[in-house]
Structures are given as structure tokens and as C-alpha cells.
């Protein structure tokens, strides 16, 4: 009996090795991936990207722990041949230390994730929205299959290009004339469905200057299937300095 037990502990040492090597490789790959992250172009995008990258570190760790255990035990404890008739000595139906560790980790990780990045991220997103005293209001109208933008306070109406200043929080007021659409600028890290008979708001604080021409992540893209024209329901975006925005407004308002 002790022989079998000793064997299992020895096997466990092998698994630990697999974990260490797997962790090193996996997390290195993730570090490289995160280093090459596409444009993060707003305060909000920073928050959602941080949530995503954090979960990636964690997912790789769990993948290595669980997946490593599966692959390792399938290989380490495989039968010698298809006709192998040896019955393994270990016939335990449960082993409390393993079960308890698993439970504690599973519950712990879940609670932790709900708090961070879940609730923390949400609170941060909401806080920006609450703290903004005078956002730049942009009325966004979606219809099959185009976007139009109006700046009510600036007197700019019905333009088909989205021009916004850097560093100021914008309140996008979203309406649709027909079916559902979804307002999404990939670089801004958040999207919002535009729903018939309802008005929705999306708060974005752009941080990266640029335009669709310089980085395609900076584009308005409809992200909710809306019929034939859905893939081409895009609009160019330009993020400019506050001064340039002023000139643009005076050139485009009546």
C-alpha cells in the first residue's frame, strides 16, 4: 500500500515540474501578446483592456494548472498496452486534501474576479460618468446603414464623420431610426447597443490622437447585425486637439 502512495507523491513532483515549465512558457507568450496590444485610445479602453489582460494572466495560469494535470496524468498513468490487464492499486474514491484545495481555490478565484476586475472596473467606468460636469454631447443617429452625428451645443448637425477632441469626456446619445445597431469604436474599448424606442448613453474620454486613416481601430463600426449593409456600417473617426476641434466646429456650424 505504501508503495503505491509513495509512487503517487513521486508522480506529483513530476506534475509540479510540468506546471513550472508550462507557466514559464505560457506567461511569456501572454506577456508578448500584451506587449503587442492594439491601440488603447480612451480612458475607458484602458479600464477594459486592463480587465482583459489581467484575466489573461490568470487564464493562462489556470490553464496550465488544470490542463497540465490532465495531460500529465493521462501520460504518466497510461496503461502499457491495449491488452494491459493490470488493475491499478489506487482505488480511492475521493481524497479530501485535493477536493478541499480545489474548492477553496475555485470559490476564492471567483469571488476575487467578481471584485477585480469586475466590480472595480465597473465602478471606474461609472465614476467617470458621474464625475463629468459638462461633457461634450454628441447625438448619434443610427439607421440602416449609416451613422450621423450632431453636436447640439456646438450647432453642428448631421455630419457623417465623427470628430472629437482629445481628453474631454463625451456623452454619446444613441438613437436608432429602425432596427438595433451597436455603437462601437474599437480603440475606445466599449460598445453600446442602440435600441429602438430607447435612448442610450455611452461616455468616452478619448486619449489618443489619430484618425481612421492612421489606425483602423479608430472607426465607428456597427457591432450588431442589422441587415445587408451591416459590415459597411462604419464611419470615420478623427480625434484632434481641443484647439483643432474648435476650428472644426466653427467651420461646420451654422
Amino acid at each position, binding site marked *: 500500500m505504501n508503495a*503505491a502512495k509513495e*509512487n*503517487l507523491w513521486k508522480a506529483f513532483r513530476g506534475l509540479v515540474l510540468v506546471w513550472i515549465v508550462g507557466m514559464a512558457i505560457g506567461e511569456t507568450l501572454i506577456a508578448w501578446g500584451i506587449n503587442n*496590444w*492594439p491601440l488603447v485610445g480612451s480612458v475607458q479602453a484602458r479600464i*477594459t483592456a486592463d*480587465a*482583459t489582460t489581467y*484575466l489573461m494572466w490568470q*487564464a493562462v495560469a*489556470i*490553464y496550465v494548472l488544470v490542463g497540465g*494535470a*490532465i*495531460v500529465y*496524468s*493521462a501520460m504518466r*498513468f*497510461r*496503461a502499457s498496452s*491495449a491488452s494491459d490487464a493490470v*488493475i*491499478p*492499486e*489506487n*482505488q480511492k*474514491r*475521493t481524497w479530501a486534501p485535493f*477536493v478541499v484545495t480545489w474548492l477553496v481555490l475555485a470559490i476564492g478565484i*471567483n469571488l476575487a*474576479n*467578481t471584485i477585480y*476586475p*469586475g*466590480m472595480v*472596473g*465597473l465602478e471606474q*467606468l461609472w465614476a467617470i460618468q458621474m464625475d463629468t460636469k459638462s461633457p461634450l454631447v454628441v447625438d448619434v443617429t443610427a439607421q440602416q446603414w449609416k451613422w450621423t452625428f450632431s453636436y447640439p451645443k456646438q450647432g453642428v448637425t448631421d455630419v457623417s464623420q465623427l470628430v472629437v477632441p482629445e481628453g474631454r469626456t463625451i456623452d454619446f446619445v444613441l438613437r436608432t431610426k429602425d432596427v438595433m445597431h*451597436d455603437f*462601437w469604436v*474599437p480603440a475606445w*474599448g*466599449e*460598445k453600446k*447597443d442602440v*435600441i*429602438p*424606442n*430607447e435612448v442610450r448613453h455611452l461616455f468616452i474620454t478619448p486619449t489618443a490622437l489619430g484618425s481612421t486613416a492612421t489606425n*483602423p481601430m479608430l*472607426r465607428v*463600426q*456597427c457591432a*450588431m*447585425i442589422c*441587415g*445587408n449593409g*451591416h*459590415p*459597411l456600417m462604419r464611419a470615420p473617426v478623427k480625434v484632434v486637439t481641443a484647439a483643432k476641434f474648435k476650428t472644426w466646429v466653427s467651420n461646420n456650424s451654422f
Partner: protein
Amino acid sequence: MATNEMQAQALNETGGGKTSFAISMLFPLFRATLWGLTGYFAAAWITAALLGSVIVNPLPATVGYIVGLVGWLMGSGLWEGWIRRAFGGAEAPAYTGVERYFRFGPDSKSTAVRYVVFNVVAFFFAGLAAMAIRVELLTPDSTGWWMSTIHYNMTFGIHGLMMLLAVAASVIVGGVGYYLVPLMLGVRNVVFPKLLGLSWWLLPPAAFAVFMSPTIGGFQTGWWGYPPLAQNSGSGIVFYVLGAATLLTASVLGAINIAGTMVYMRAKGMSLGRVPIFVWGLFAASTILIVEAPATFTGALMDLSDMILGSHFYTGPTGHPLAYMDQFWFLFHPEVYVFALPAFAIWLEILPAAAKRPLFARNWAIAGLVGVSMLGAMLGVHHYFTAVSPARMPIFMTFTETVSIPTGFIYLSAIGTLWGGRLKINAAVLLVLMAMMNFLVGGLTGIFNADVPADLQLHNTYWVVAHFHYTILGAVIFTWIAALYWWFPKVTGRKINEFWGKFHAWWFFVFFNCTFFPMFIAGIEGMNRRIAIYLPYLHGINLFISISAFLLGAGFLIPLANLVYSWRRGEKAEPNPWGSKGLEWQIKSPTPYIPFPEGTEPEVVGPNDNYAAGSKEPFVWVSTPSK
């Protein structure tokens, strides 16, 4: 007499008619097709004539579908086999030979085999649709000679709906489950055999209608059918709604049978604690269908009503399109557990027999299966975080993340079973291990979608496409093929070809990952889903995905050939080739028409996963006490 020798007796006499196949046996199938099509066209045409419209309009198509469905069912043998008799008319003879495979009947085994055939066919055509999608995405712009954006939208909608409701929903529950549930529980048939027989006959017309939806204008909503797009992008949505409702009904009829059989018809001595884990998995899935399908079912009918009857539930200035989302996802989130729980349960059914160890932490595994099914009802909202009010975000985020705890129990149990065993890795076991690895990716990436901040960016991008293909294709379809291989000797008396089984497993694993892993990256790089046209900066990655997808798709011809060839010519299998202690293997293979003879029944005397050297057999055959 209470010995295992009893099973050897008299079984041959109950093998059913020894007739061989004759073309005349296809008569019910032919008649069903004829009556179905005639019914459809006649009813649609008459309705159109009465309304002064044309048959491709929504209302005539609806009436046609319903009449056609009834015609098909009657033609299939429902009339002689059930209805006539129920009204006191003549009783149809028992079809015990080959002919039972081609007509309506109460035999759960032939129903299950028919499920496999249906699933294979549906998988083939829905797979062709996937290939068509990938051809379109070879280049960033619209590939005019191939398909327009309209056709592209129809194609992914059909692909998605068919893969989910005609494949994933029934591959394991139907083909594997309906065959094994009675045998595993030690009874000769399910509780409502005719209802189960009916469930299969609902599938072909429903799937056919969905595939044919482009002929009446198609639908462009994808498999969600969200209003108000549903009502203004083609009458094909009628076939979408009716097809989906019919397929769901078929699932529910099966669920009622599984739940009823498990609760009321277990063999002598089979306490709930001794019910095989696979039956537990199916039971958990069945409760989901029974309790949650109604929400989606009513949603679909109201969507249809808006289209054909002029109501305004979701459309017009007073409509509530968000309510449709609530209804739709109330089942269709848990529906993914209807796919996944049976797959999990298959892992836990196969691994102990393959590793020669008892199922580790069995009670935790059952708690996991049941726990997931219960939590599932509270998660639907995570599919539209981008549409809901902020108050609902944290609630559904928390619930959704919680579901990974019971899901984890499955892995806990599986790893504990492998640890210290002696695993024989045949093609089926290899596929199970691969399915576990794939589902791990699918499950872990699901946490990103549950996390609202991350999901606000990832929602409706290719990230999500990758995520659910990992869970469904990567886990459920892998497991389906594994189950077909594992129980193949039970059904045919032969074994599949191990070499080609393993060869394909590796092919599948490699090209599956090459196809779908890059989709995570495409999603992060800003590629949203359901687009025929994408920006050129995404070209490279899509080219790679498409080529991998073609190889992946072509690879499915290998298991198809393997199964067909082995069915005719495969190596003969001994009665219990894997040395399993499961009750289904105590019965002769291939299972006779009457699985065990009159007057005998199994009695459970121990756990069915005790592989310790010299342990007692878990079952004995006893004679049925006469009343």
C-alpha cells in the same frame, strides 16, 4: 436463478425480425415526404389565394409549414402507429426488423440510431455553410462571384441555428442518450416510447425548412432572430421561428422521457446514488429544457406573431425589443448546458472504465452537473451586457462567474479519476482528453465574457465566436465522436478502426485549434462578428483561419468513412470490449430488439464503477416476480 448466465438465455429470440433491407421499407419515408410537400404547397397556395398574396409571404408560409408538418408526421406512420389506435382503431403490427428504422415507432434504439443519421446529415450541411462563410472571408471585400452580403447573412444564420438546434442539442442527448438511458437504467424502453419516437420525426421537416428559408427570402438576423430586424429582412424568418420552435419541441419531448424514466423506472436496487453519471448529466440537461424552454418558445411565437398577425410586441413605437432578448436568452443561455452537461457526463462515464478506477468524488460531480443546470437559469443576461441598464450588470456578472465553480467539479472528478489509474488511450479516450483541453479554453475565455468591463469590448467580436466554438465544437462535437466510437460495439457489434480514429483525432485537434484560436486575436484586434466585409488589416489572420477551416472541414470525412466502413466490415467486438462495469455492457451486443427477455430483469447490487481487483459484479439478473 440469479446469475449472470441468465443473460445468455433466449436473447436470440428477441433480436427482432431477421428481415434484411428491402426498398419497400422506405415507403413510409416516401409517403411522409410526399404528404409533407403536398401539404405545404397546397396549404400555402390556398392561403395565398384567399388573402390575395403569394406563397412566399409570411402568413402562407406559416400555414404551409404547419400543414406540411402534419402531413409529414402522418405519412411517417404516426397515424397507424399511434393515432388510429388511440381512437380505438386497429393496432399496427410491431415492426421489429430493419423496417423499424424507416418509420415512426416506439423503439428507442432505432430512434437513437436515426438521431445519429440526422445529426450527421445536419452537421454535413451546416458544415458546408461554414465552409461557404470561410470562402467569403478569404478576402476582405465582398467576394461578388461567391455570395452577396445578403447571402452571407443568411448563411451564417442557417449555419448557427442548424449547428445549435439540429446538431449540438441532440448529438449526445439524442443519438447517445436515447439509446443508452433505458439500458443504463435497466429497463427495456423509456417511459413514453411513442413520444420519443415522435421527437425524431419532428426534426427533418424543421431542419429542411430552415435550410430552405432562402427560397422564401431568407433571414438576416443570425440565429438570434432579434426584432425588429427579424420582421424587416425577409420572410425566411418564418421558417427560422417555426423550425426553431419545432426543434425545441423535439428536445422537450426527449427531456420529458429522460426525466420521467430516470425518476420512475430505475432497475431494482438502483438508488439515486447508483444512477450512472451519464444519466445524471442527461437529467440535469432535461430539467433545463422543461423549465426554461417556455420563455424562448413564447418569445419565438411572439416574434412570429409580429410578423404575420400584426401584433406589436417587439416592433413599432410601442414595442419592447429588449423583452425579446430576455426571453430568448432565458433558455438559450442554459441551452449551452443542454449541450455541455451530457458531454461532461460522457467524460465521467468513459474515464473510469478506461482508467480502471472508480469515478473520483462522484457526489461532487453530480453536484456539479445539477448545480450548473440550476445556476443556468439566472445567467441569460450576460449575452447582452451592452444592452442592459447598469443595475443588471453586476448581478449577472456575479451569477455567471459563479457557474464556473460547479463546472470545475467535473474537472476535479476527471483529474482525480485519471490520477493513479492505468489509462487505456483508444481513439474515444483520446477525443475525450482533447475535449477536456478544448473546453478548458472555452470555459476560461468565458470568464472574460462574464466580466462586464472586458465584455463591453469583446462582445459581438470574433472573440465570442472563438469562445463558443471552443465549447461546442471543441468540447461537444469531440465528445460526440468519442461517444460514437466508444459505444459503437454496443450498437453494431463491431469496433471502429483505431488507427483512423486516432489519426482523425489529431487532425481534428490541430486544425480545430488553428482555425479557432486566431479568432480570439482577430476579436481583440477589432473584428466584429457577422460581417462579410472586413478591413484589409485583418486579411492575413483571416486567410490563415480560412485555410485551416477547410482542412478541419475536410477532415470530417475520415470519421464518416470510418463509421460507415466499420459498421459493415469492422473487426467484431466482444460483448464488453472495454471491460466496463456499466449495465449497458451486460446486455448482448448489438442490443436485441427486446434488450433482455421477458421474465428477467437486472438487479443492482453494487456501485457500477468498482474496478478493484476481485470486486463483485455490480449487477445480477433476477427473474421478474409475476404479479
